[in-house]
């Protein structure tokens, strides 16, 4: 079986500035891979480059054996890649139901949309209770659940999450991380997760990557990285 995601020599940035510098990465089907790093290490740029939100300066992105380098987000969604952006990626003026329907914008079959909404409600029952509520009026944790639910609406094989714990209370962070494990275990979705919360990011991962100033510093076991001395050396 081919790897789910293969990144070779990815260079990306904004204008003349290169933020991610020659990163190689392989993610196998069913894995949860956490990308760690300081602010400005290039984590978000890496994800946006993979998903096609920014143009790569060079490098290749492969998904399930196909070259998806430079493809648009709408094409990537159709292929089976979804992104949960940083900072509650929802439509704040629309209802929970409308947000979920828009999450499934690439899906034309109404029965499939209904089935996936039911699945999201199964995963996050609070969203069903509040399906008529305007997204921007939900609590931070509920907005994050909605953002994850929206990404699941396209039925992705690879789910990319950019700091889903940011700004959440510790209990809610646990709930979000549990839902990531659940999505991975029950739906078989491969997860590429960027996290600043080291403890939670390492606890949920099968493998950890550390980025520093746009280059890959570590790629291996989360348990080894969790060793205090090593963490101090890395950060």
């Amino acid at each position, binding site marked *: 079986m081919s790897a789910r995601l293969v990144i070779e020599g990815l260079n990306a940035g904004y204008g003349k500035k290169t933020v991610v510098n020659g990163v190689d990465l392989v993610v196998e089907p069913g894995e949860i891979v956490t990308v760690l790093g300081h602010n400005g290490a290039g984590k978000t740029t890496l994800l946006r480059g993979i998903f096609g939100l920014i143009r790569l300066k060079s490098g290749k992105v492969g998904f399930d054996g196909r070259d998806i380098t430079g493809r648009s*987000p709408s094409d990537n969604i159709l292929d089976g890649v979804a992104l949960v952006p940083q900072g509650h990626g929802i439509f704040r003026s629309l209802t929970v139901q409308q947000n979920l329907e828009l999450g499934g914008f690439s899906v034309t079959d109404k029965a499939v949309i209904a089935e996936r909404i039911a699945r999201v409600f199964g995963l996050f029952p609070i969203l069903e209770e509040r399906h008529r509520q305007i997204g921007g009026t939900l609590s931070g944790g509920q907005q994050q659940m909605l953002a994850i639910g929206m990404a699941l609406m396209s039925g992705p094989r690879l789910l990319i999450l950019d700091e889903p714990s940011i700004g959440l209370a510790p209990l809610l962070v646990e709930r979000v991380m549990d839902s990531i494990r659940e999505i991975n275990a029950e739906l078989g979705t491969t997860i590429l997760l960027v996290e600043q919360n080291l403890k939670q990011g390492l606890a949920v991962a099968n493998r950890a990557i550390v980025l520093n100033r746009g280059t890959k510093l570590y790629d291996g076991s989360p348990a080894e990285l969790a060793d205090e001395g090593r963490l101090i050396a890395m950060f």
Partner: protein
Amino acid sequence: MDLFAQLLVNGLGNGSRYALLGLGFGLIFGTTRIVHFAYGPIYAVAAYAAWLAASAAGLPLAISAAIGVAGAALAGAAVYGLAYRPFEARGMSSHSVLILSLALSIVLDSLLTLAFTPSVQTIPEFTAPIFILGPVYVTALQLGQIAAVVAVAAILTLFLRRTRYGQAILALGDNRDMARIVGIDTDRISLVVFAIGSAVSAIAAVFTLLNEGATPTMGFNPVFIAFVVAVVGGLGSIPGAIAGGYLVGLVESLGLWKIPTEWQNSIAFVLLFLVMLVRPQGLFSGLKR
């Protein structure tokens, strides 16, 4: 009292035209965040397309009006695709796009003057029936404008709430980045929004053609009125644009009762100033389309 009633009727007629202008402008700005000053010349394009169809080709009025609307939709989409979009794709700031929009407006006005001369073009055989209702005169055009607002608002509301494209437009107006992330082709949706917004303004333009005739600069005032209406009502809100349109139309018309006519063009901007002071987000901001 008779004068007041007549000014009220006139205000409702003008307000309907302003509401249409505000609906189109608000839809474009609320969705794409482009301050589309070239909306004015596109408005004039609609009037000239209808005028050519009716006068040169001798087509029936309804078909000529439809040609005006279609012409504006095409011109609006072309302006986005050929002018604004390339600027956006290069990552130009919204200020640069604003300057482009002003420049485009001036160039298109000049092209219209070259093509049609500055003279007023009218449809000679057309006269609107007039009805006498007690102390006031009501023209068929005024009634038509009110009916047009009702029809356009109903169609737009259904389109935005019930169709896939409508949902995509709402999404784009809320958060452009997220719209791309869920797989919406934001360029295509922007193009559609420019076509629809221009088509809505074209309905007002056809009424102006029938009422006053067409001139190359006939869109100059309407673009500012559209801006005032959309901002006063709350950008991107359908009820807001309608309320804003009627408010501006009525205040402008009733203002003539006590204020000298030379102030008429300033009334809308005084209203804008007052609303901005009291409710900067617009009267209907926060209400959904």
